[in-house]
């Protein structure tokens, strides 16, 4: 630690940092624009000026940019110096020359860093009375809105989009006071992280285009601490609600995971909650396609009667909370509780959990600091998007290490990037097809999943003689394995990334072998990350469900938050549901399974619900409701509790709150007991008070329901959390797991996260939320996996059909969000040019894909990156039947 004097006050600070970083860490209000905690310093805006003095006697000092000045032990600076104050006010005044002063109609208003900084510097009167420059705005797609006139030229957007996120379809154009940030021409921003521009831009140039359609000011939104439901990464976010409508999602800082950035699926997928397809009323099927709505009590009684009769099985869900899955497991009994995923997927999830018990997964922050990476089999950008953004940073590690002799600190961003030029650390990608990280890879290799696994096994073998050998490996693949092994073994923090996308156990085993080989050669920082498909995939697996294929035979079947037609072939599901069997579906959205149900129970959407998701690290994280579920809708676990109560089941009948359920879960499954610590319980209070979900400026409280009743109703009760549906409560910083939104006096924008961290870009005060459920066992040796798959034997006239993932389209819930739907691909069949040629087929033509004796007609797309003998279809699209892929298929010229 170093000591610096800030306005004569001695302060202990990090000697590796710059003055702005440490001043903010100390809690000082020092204005800035171009600096960003994750993007570092470039000194572009000149807003962070402070006085730096030679010594204690120097009273004149000189102005320096705090963000560009390294901490020096004993340094004396002043924030309050009149010259510094005047300079900072002048900078704002200059920036505001061209600003349209349109805050009242700007979506950023009320949470704008430019507003905050303007107020902070005291610039309150406009002297400039000349024409302003005006720009034409661009259409940037359905997610991001563009209003260039508000730009203050801080350059954060280009730095994030191009340098941090790797996007190449966005830039800065022109010169002087005509600098323009946008695209070459109008069009959808291609980068999967473009939505972060909403938060990266300190003004209202880039704002949330979906929010615009149902806009509400930040101070009028009711927030919750929440966890993303759209993949298995577990990003933390703040959904905001008003008038019963979910209005938007913003990032909620988590040091280990999303930090300041989300992917666009997570940011914009939320609109499924407002979808027309929401189920709002319990209903009973009385004849084919005929329904009768039911009040809550008789609906629960109906299900209770079935439960009492006993012959009921339950199918859980990887997108339902641990609590809801547990409630179902309890209702039907553990032997009658089945996984709501395919058998292959369940097996892989169990394997992933076992591997986590050997060695903890890296956090996203740790992935960023990996100095050699192998991605084996996973199209990370499309399956675990935010993870890809972290992996992209990893290639900077080696060049950054080379900066040490140059004495360039890492935070001095452009100096560091200039020094590194195009040099990148070793990054290898071996996947079935091209991925959106290929541009940073030293080498890519495309092959069928089994071949990829063989490569992985070969890498492990090069690293460790005792790992199994791979027979008949072609020399070029062996050579590639050698290069990958060399890169990993000479790294300090090597990382292997795999996942479930290929549905291949061999791939996971090969990845695990590499990680094990590295650790056996004393690379203690070697890490293995396995991307899992859904928000609670691991949570479901930890409840030890039986394989889906064994579900059969019972009188009645409860399906929890799941569309079985996405999980198994239609013929299998039809057979499962055939005869007189009763199907009870609990879900928030209408889908083919709810359409077939005898009884539908409307479940709370995740933003109206509270529960726990277990992410790819095995981290249990609690999410809370932004608003109570409307009308008759309630949490799935409450429906199940009500039914169990009707059936006279003691254990669940008494559950009044989520905590009651969790206590039961912890008793029943002691291995999962740490989940109790994912967040403080509902009776947690701060100085006797609850934590408000609403900002203290929340307006219209007394008027909102005045059309119904002039006296203001009490806020809805919340037995499940220590949060209140109110602006009243304790205003202090709650534990991080309970933090609904970031606001601090003078800091209305997202930059307020500064005020909640122990140190800038460090942990939130009180520690990062979530608990790891799969602590490695004390002696984490483990053996090498020995089942090396044989080389792929091609089949005459058949293609190995692979799933191709799409960030927009492959995930079910977000498909119900109009903006995401708009960006989802139409169904297609992909073939390499050579394979299409061998069939005499051309792009755009209709082709018939034969699977299990049935043909599907699809339009042909040429993907030059597909390996020979392989074909691909977009994963998860509702327009395609659920396919257990990879699978062998025949392809023919289609009709029409």
């Amino acid at each position: 630690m170093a000591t610096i004097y800030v306005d004569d006050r001695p302060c202990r600070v990090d000697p590796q940092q710059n003055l702005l970083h440490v001043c903010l860490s100390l809690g000082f209000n020092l204005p800035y624009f171009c600096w960003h905690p994750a993007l570092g310093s470039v000194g572009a805006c000149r807003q962070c000026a402070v006085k730096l003095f030679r010594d204690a006697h120097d009273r004149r000092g000189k102005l320096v940019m705090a963000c560009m000045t390294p901490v020096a032990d004993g340094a004396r600076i002043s924030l309050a110096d009149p010259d510094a104050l005047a300079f900072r006010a002048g900078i704002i005044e200059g920036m505001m020359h061209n600003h349209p002063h349109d805050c009242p109609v700007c979506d950023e208003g009320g949470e704008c860093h430019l507003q905050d900084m303007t107020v902070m510097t005291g610039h309150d009167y406009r002297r400039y009375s000349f024409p302003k420059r005006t720009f034409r705005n661009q259409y940037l797609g359905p997610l991001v809105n563009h209003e260039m006139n508000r730009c203050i030229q801080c350059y954060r957007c280009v730095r994030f989009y191009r340098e941090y996120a790797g996007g190449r379809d966005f830039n800065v154009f022109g010169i002087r006071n005509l600098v323009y940030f946008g695209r070459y021409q109008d069009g959808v921003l291609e980068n999967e992280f473009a939505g972060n521009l909403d938060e990266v831009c300190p003004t209202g140039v880039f704002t949330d285009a979906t929010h615009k359609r149902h806009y509400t000011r930040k101070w009028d939104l009711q927030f919750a601490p929440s966890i993303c439901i759209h993949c298995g990464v577990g990003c933390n976010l703040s959904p905001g609600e008003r008038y019963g409508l979910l209005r938007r999602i913003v990032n909620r800082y988590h040091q280990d995971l999303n930090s300041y950035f989300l992917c666009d699926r997570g940011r914009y997928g939320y609109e499924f909650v407002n979808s027309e397809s929401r189920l709002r009323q319990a209903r009973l099927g009385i004849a084919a396609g005929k329904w009768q709505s039911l009040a809550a009590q008789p609906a629960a009684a109906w299900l209770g009667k079935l439960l009492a009769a006993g012959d009921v099985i339950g199918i859980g869900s990887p997108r339902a909370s641990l609590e809801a899955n547990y409630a179902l497991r309890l209702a039907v009994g553990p032997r009658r509780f089945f996984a709501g995923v395919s058998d292959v997927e369940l097996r892989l999830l169990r394997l992933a959990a076992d591997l986590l018990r050997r060695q903890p997964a890296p956090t996203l922050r740790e992935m960023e600091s990996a100095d050699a990476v192998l991605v084996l089999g996973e199209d990370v950008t499309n399956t675990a998007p935010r993870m890809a953004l972290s992996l992209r940073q990893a290639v900077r590690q080696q060049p950054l290490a080379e900066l040490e002799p140059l004495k360039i600190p890492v935070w001095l961003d452009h100096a560091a990037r200039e020094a590194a030029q195009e040099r990148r650390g070793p990054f290898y990608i071996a996947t079935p097809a091209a991925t959106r990280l290929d541009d940073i890879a030293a080498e890519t290799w495309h092959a069928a999943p089994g071949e990829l696994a063989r490569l992985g096994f070969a890498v492990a073998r090069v690293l460790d003689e005792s790992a199994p050998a791979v027979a008949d490996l072609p020399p070029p693949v062996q050579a590639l394995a050698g290069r990958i092994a060399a890169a990993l073994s000479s790294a300090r923090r090597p990382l292997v990334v795999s996942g479930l996308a290929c549905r291949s156990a061999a791939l996971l085993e090969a990845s695990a072998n590499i990680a094990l080989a590295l650790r056996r050669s004393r690379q203690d920082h070697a890490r293995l990350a396995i991307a899992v498909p859904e928000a609670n995939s691991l949570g479901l697996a930890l409840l030890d469900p039986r394989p889906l294929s064994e579900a059969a035979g019972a009188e009645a079947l409860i399906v929890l938050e799941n569309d079985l037609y996405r999980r198994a072939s239609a013929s299998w599901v039809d057979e499962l549901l055939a005869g007189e069997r009763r199907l009870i579906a609990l879900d928030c959205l209408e889908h083919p399974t709810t359409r077939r149900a005898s009884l539908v129970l409307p479940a709370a959407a995740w933003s109206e619900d509270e529960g726990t998701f277990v992410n790819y690290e095995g981290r249990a994280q609690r999410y809370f409701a932004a608003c109570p579920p409307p009308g008759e809708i309630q949490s799935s676990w409450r429906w199940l509790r009500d039914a169990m109560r009707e059936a006279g089941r003691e254990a669940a009948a008494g559950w009044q709150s989520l905590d009651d359920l969790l206590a039961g879960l912890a008793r029943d499954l002691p291995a999962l007991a740490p989940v109790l610590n994912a967040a403080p319980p509902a009776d947690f209070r701060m100085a006797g008070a609850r934590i408000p979900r609403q900002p203290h400026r929340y307006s219209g409280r007394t008027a909102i329901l005045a059309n119904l009743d002039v006296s203001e109703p009490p806020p809805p009760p919340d037995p499940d959390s220590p949060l209140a549906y109110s602006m009243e409560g304790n205003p202090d910083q709650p534990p991080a797991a309970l933090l609904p939104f970031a606001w601090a006096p003078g800091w209305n924008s997202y930059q307020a996260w500064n005020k909640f961290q122990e140190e800038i870009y460090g942990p939130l005060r009180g520690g990062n939320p979530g608990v790891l459920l799969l602590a490695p066992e004390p002696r984490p040796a483990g053996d090498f996996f020995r089942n090396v798959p044989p080389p792929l034997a091609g089949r005459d006239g058949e293609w190995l059909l692979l799933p191709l993932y799409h960030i927009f389209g492959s995930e079910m819930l977000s498909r119900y969000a109009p903006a995401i739907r708009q960006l989802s691909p139409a169904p297609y069949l992909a073939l390499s040019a050579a394979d299409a040629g061998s069939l005499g087929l051309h792009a755009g033509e209709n082709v018939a894909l034969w699977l299990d004796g049935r043909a599907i007609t699809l339009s042909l797309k040429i993907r030059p990156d597909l390996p020979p003998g392989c074909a691909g279809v977009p994963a998860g699209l509702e327009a395609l039947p659920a396919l257990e892929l990879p699978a062998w298929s025949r392809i023919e010229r289609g009709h029409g």
Partner: protein
Amino acid sequence: MLSADERREIEAEIPRYPQRQAACIDALKIVQRRRGWISDESLRDIAELLGMTLDELDAVATFYNLIYRHPVGRHVILLCNSVSCWIVGYSRLREHLRRRLGIDFGETTPDRRFTLLPIVCLGACDHAPVLMIDQDLHRDLDPAGLERVLESYR
């Protein structure tokens, strides 16, 4: 489409830099020298040749005020309006051009003979006011002198 000559000249620049893209300024100049300006089509061709996106190349092209992204006349008049020339009355020259040619900054005569653009200090302050036409510097100008100078550009 780039001509064979243009392509050859650009390719010759590429090896002088560690990365292909770094030759983009040369490439823009090469094409502009032959065609007078950089059209969207030229931009596309150069970007493709150098492995850049249009966004990347146009960011460079629009940064430099002497790369023209609009068609210009046969001769480009660069009139200095920086401090020294401003003090000694560049505005009289500007006024003269406006009267004689009917164009102001950013405009081209209908016969495409001249385009008038402002420029920062040409480094000839001791002979202010100055202007450049194409590659030629003209110093110590007054309206009469300017009139004579214009004559030599047809």
